[in-house]
């Protein structure tokens, strides 16, 4: 049987080599969802079937034949869309801010990720399959960031999005200057004020850092040139802080810059232009709508909230039309969460842009799928339903932009990581398991230390010492 001729694919040129690799990537059973409304995001809506096989999407069309042994799911009345991508999250992170210094580019969030954070599972249940995990915003130049797939149950290393460009967090405005105020503040030192205390100082911190990075880069270039000529040379001292900034200068690390006001957005564009690097995304960027033109000219993306406002002074001019204006003015725009709760309903956040600013349904859904994928440069792998892309797929019981719909199933790389029915049917079992564990812990405690229990410890203390 020649399956290729039977697949009514939307991206036929990609189908060839992939079909030959079927089943090569994972041991998961192939899945065919039939009779569904398939929102591809990039190629319109298809009423029909989608085939997930070998970790990839291998067929989309009105009719797709099920390979032998495939699990068939009836998608009648249901909707399929690509996994949601959150361009700004802090779940998994056991630490957020290295707030003791103004430039903390030597640290990386990848070193403190907890793969057992329940936030991962909750995000999955809200349809998120990929998230950009960021350092906090306490410093003008913050720590390194990393893109993760929500492969719940795997270890942190295995959850990393293979080959995704690493990033670094920058932060402008109130947060980085907070530690410069005498009283200190969230994420900042409680003691002596830390430079900077103003937006002027924030600019200076970034300029000084890149001034250092350029000089550092030059010393290495000189050294390498000498080596190339066969000369004897002493290597320069390695500077972990500047290494990360040299990667930015070399275009090997994306800058994700937390910002609010238009003045600071322009400031950072000027600094980047002066030192010859690019801002990949402006994050939050609540006044992005005021400088959409300049953001577009710089080639940066914008990743914002649907309707957050009023929580601080620099959010005073935040408007729920921000995303729509940015999209209409040609800026690559996404909606992010920055919050473990908001992360669970980014689809519903996207729906708001239909009302606020009149985006089309596809434009709205693109804000949480293909657009963040492009911003993170992972769009060849994820962000839309296309043959050849990763099988990061959501099944909904209704249209994803309806507030009455919910995610039923989630696949990442063709492996099912969330199933609402299974979640519900496991609840009783888990309750009983919990009760049994509590009883055992209580019995052990009464017994003055049973098997595996240190005498005198409470169950919490035992848990804490693991």
């Amino acid at each position: 049987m020649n399956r290729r001729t039977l697949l009514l694919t939307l991206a036929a040129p990609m189908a060839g080599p992939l079909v030959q690799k079927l089943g090569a990537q994972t041991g998961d059973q192939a899945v065919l969802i039939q009779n569904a409304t398939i929102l591809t995001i990039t190629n319109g809506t298809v009423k029909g079937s989608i085939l997930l096989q070998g970790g990839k999407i291998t067929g989309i069309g009105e009719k797709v034949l099920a390979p032998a042994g495939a699990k068939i799911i009836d998608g009648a009345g249901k909707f399929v869309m690509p996994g949601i991508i959150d361009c700004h999250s802090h779940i998994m992170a056991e630490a957020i801010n290295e707030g003791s210094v103004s430039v903390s580019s030597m640290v990386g969030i990848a070193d403190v990720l907890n793969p057992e954070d329940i936030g991962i599972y909750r995000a999955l249940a809200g349809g998120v399959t990929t998230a950009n995990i960021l350092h906090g915003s306490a410093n003008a130049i913050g720590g390194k960031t990393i893109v993760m797939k929500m492969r719940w149950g795997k270890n942190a290393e295995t959850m990393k999005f293979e080959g995704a460009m690493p990033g670094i967090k920058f932060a402008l405005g109130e947060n980085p200057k907070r530690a410069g105020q005498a009283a200190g503040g969230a994420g900042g030192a409680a003691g002596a004020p830390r430079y900077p205390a103003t937006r002027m100082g924030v600019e200076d911190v970034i300029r000084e850092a890149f001034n250092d990075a350029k000089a550092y880069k030059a010393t290495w270039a000189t050294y390498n040139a000498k080596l190339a000529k066969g000369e004897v040379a002493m290597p320069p001292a390695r500077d972990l802080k500047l290494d990360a900034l040299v990667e930015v200068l070399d275009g090997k690390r994306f800058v994700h810059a937390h910002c609010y006001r238009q003045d600071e957005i322009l400031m950072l564009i000027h600094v980047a232009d002066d030192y010859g690097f690019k801002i990949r995304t402006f994050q939050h960027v609540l006044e992005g709508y005021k400088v959409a033109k300049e953001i577009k000219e710089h080639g940066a993306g914008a990743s914002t909230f649907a309707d957050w406002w009023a929580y601080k002074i620099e959010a005073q001019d935040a408007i729920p039309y921000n995303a729509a204006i940015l999209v209409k003015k040609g800026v690559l725009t996404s909606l992010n969460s920055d919050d473990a709760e908001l992360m669970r309903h980014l689809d519903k956040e996207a729906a708001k842009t239909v009302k606020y600013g009149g985006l089309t349904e596809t434009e709205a859904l693109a804000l949480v799928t293909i657009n963040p994928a492009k911003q993170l440069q992972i769009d060849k792998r994820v962000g839309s339903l296309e043959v050849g892309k990763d099988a990061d797929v959501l099944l909904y019981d209704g249209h994803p932009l309806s507030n009455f719909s919910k995610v039923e199933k989630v696949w990442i790389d063709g492996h099912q990581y969330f199933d609402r029915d299974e979640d519900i049917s496991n609840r009783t079992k888990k309750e009983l398991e919990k009760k049994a564990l509590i009883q055992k812990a209580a019995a052990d405690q009464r017994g003055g230390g049973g098997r595996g229990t240190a005498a005198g410890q409470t169950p919490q203390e035992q848990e804490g010492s693991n």
Partner: protein
Amino acid sequence: MRIQGIVAGAVLLSASAGFGFQAAATGISGAPAAGGDSFVIKGATVHTVAGADIQNGSVMVRNGKIIGVGKNLTASKDLKVIDGKGLHVYPGMIDAGTEIGLIEINSVRESSDTTEIGKFNPHLVALTAVNPESEHIPVTRFNGITSALTMPSGQLISGQVSLIHLDGWTTDEMGIKPRAGMHLRIPTIAAPRAGFSSDADVPAAANRTGFTQAKQNFDKEMAELNEFFESARRYVQLRAAKPEGFKPDLKLEAMIPVLEGKEPVLVTAVREREIRDALAFGDKQKVKIILLDAQEAWKVTKEIKEHNVPVVLGPMLSLPLNEDDPYDRQYTTPADLQRAGILFSIGTLEGKANLSSRNLPYQAAQAVAFGLPHDEAIKAVTKNAALIWGVGDQIGTIEEGKWADLILTDGDPLEATTTIKQVFVKGKSSDMDNKQKQLYEKYINRPN
């Protein structure tokens, strides 16, 4: 200016949008509309929330009150006609628990009037500090919310919660019921949720101080609370005796309607233990209570129902309290309460963690996605809220004799994609403009 119908209304809106540029510069927006309090909406689908929906129905309004609802009504000729063809009319929504008007910017102390010093402030009234010019008001009204319960918060008794209309020139005009209830936070051993990470609800106070200390603090606060009520009862006796030189005590004076059962106590009680404590406290002090933010009410449905106590739930779109709770724990609570026959409504608790009163309908919708019947969700944000706050005869449904708090929509107001075409508060056509819309119109027109 009188509303000439929805077409004229649209002209009026675009005219005010043009005005918006100047308004933005001066910071003036959302001026309450004058006049227009007698009209008839014709040809709309009328969702009365008091009975079946009426297709091709009419709503007649005179002097701000509803004077007729139904099909084929004969409207007197002097009533302006608003064409509702293809549109829907719902009662204006009611946010049953917010801090709207009391706080403008979370991080700016000077903009907050929610929290007074001291443990016992039953005499403070929220309405006193409501800022009618708050930017939150027009922005919230834009999504179809026409009234809100706004409340002080604090340690134990923080003050009187006020039910307000989200339109009006002054606080006096906005007030529906300035003393709708007395806000009490039941003492707690575990600290309520706060913070940033996904496991935000570690019982911080308990962890910091240790259980023994936390329990001692709890016992002390419970004793103080009971003693305060007892002292109010002694005060009532003293007051009746009119001794020479008697001087009214403003705090205790404010307790009298509560002790007489004329005014409910709004009790913030989040976890099961607190909810049980709140019910027991109500029994002991023989006062009427309403539970607020009762996130674990689903564990106590039987007792809540037996006590006939209504519940104002916090936002559904919030994280489960406990790490091992089902992921949809907050989403399914409304359906649990509905099945148990408990009267409940929803408060967005605006001011807490970036939540917005304007998203009230979407909180209700989330409950629908997870099992609450749709009509019950609409009731939760209209009729039920009015019943709980004792104004069921004034607002909450589209019925003769009630205030014409109406919203005219192009679809289901619980859907984020629906646009609220026009809001009427007490029959007056509200200004649908706001600062955010003005900024939108200004910057969408910035030349490229």
